[in-house]
């Protein structure tokens, strides 16, 4: 059943993935770089030497860079927000100041 989503993704890619804003373009470009780095992108740039400064032009290097230098801290920051929220929630339950369906309201 989960594989049905692949068809819907293709349909959405054809009809709805339109480059209308800068943010959308950034998201699309990042997705394409990561996608290529995880699949056949290696074939496209395998003629470029794997060592030296030229190696920075390989798709897998771009993909690693996007993931390790930009995506990683962004996701880490989101994680920090989530973690602080969970900690605050735990503290509220401990101190008995949490309000909600489970706690009396």
């Amino acid at each position: 059943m989960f594989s049905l989503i692949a068809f819907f993704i293709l349909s959405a890619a054809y009809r709805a993935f339109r480059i209308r804003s800068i943010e959308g373009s950034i998201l699309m470009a990042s997705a394409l770089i990561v996608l290529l780095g995880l699949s056949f992108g290696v074939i496209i740039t395998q003629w470029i030497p794997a060592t030296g400064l030229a190696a920075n032009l390989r798709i897998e290097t771009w993909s690693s860079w996007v993931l390790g230098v930009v995506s990683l801290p962004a996701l880490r920051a989101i994680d920090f927000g989530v973690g602080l929220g969970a900690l605050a929630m735990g503290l509220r339950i401990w101190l008995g100041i949490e309000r909600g369906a489970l706690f009396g309201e």
Partner: protein
Amino acid sequence: MNRQDRIFGIVGLALAVPLAIVGYIVFQKPGSTAFNAFLGGIATLALYSLLYRENPIYRLFEHVYLGLAAGYVSMMAITSVVRPKWYEPVFEKGQWLWLWALPLALLAYFVFSKRHGWLSRIPLVILAGFAAGQAFQAFANLYFPQIRDSFRPVWPTTWRLDNPNPSPDSLSISGALNNILFVVTLISVLAYFLFSFEHKKPVVRSTAQLGRWLIMIGFGAIFGSTIMTRFALLVDRMSFLLVEWLHLRGPT
């Protein structure tokens, strides 16, 4: 349900039941999974019929799948959890003190009662209390190393553009630039996400705006990965149908 769907459903069932019986007679052999593969292929095609249009066959197999999953989980919960961890200690090993767990667990079913629904909150808040108690250890173990790793050097120690053998003591110019971008991204995304203070001052506002753009890159990476997962599942289903079910190709 309109007439066309009703006919679709009746014809589909009329075909599916004899097909399953014939499949059982032909494929079922001790130690063989051929019948499982046969049923799996029928179910896969039935679920894929949704791609043509919404139909009762898809609905039937969807409900069968959900029912099977629920039944399997219930069976496992009883045989792997309740029986070895509660029933046997209480009734076979004489550890009667664990008997209190049964009424406590049964209180959860009061959620179906309008008058006594409040009783169902008791086991839930006990579990919430366990989770809250563990939250501090969880936070410390999960995030303290993250915070430590976020402090990165931004001044190069070796004046090379690229370092083929990076080590903790040598940081090239490109490494330093990467670390600067890392720290800037972390701070700006944090500024965007922390809503406890207002984004009034221009510095905070522009940092949050930069964070928003940089988050797009992170989300793009997640999006690309999501596409990969979904298509990998599709490739697996196609491989199952064409290779394991129809045997159109031998094993590699």
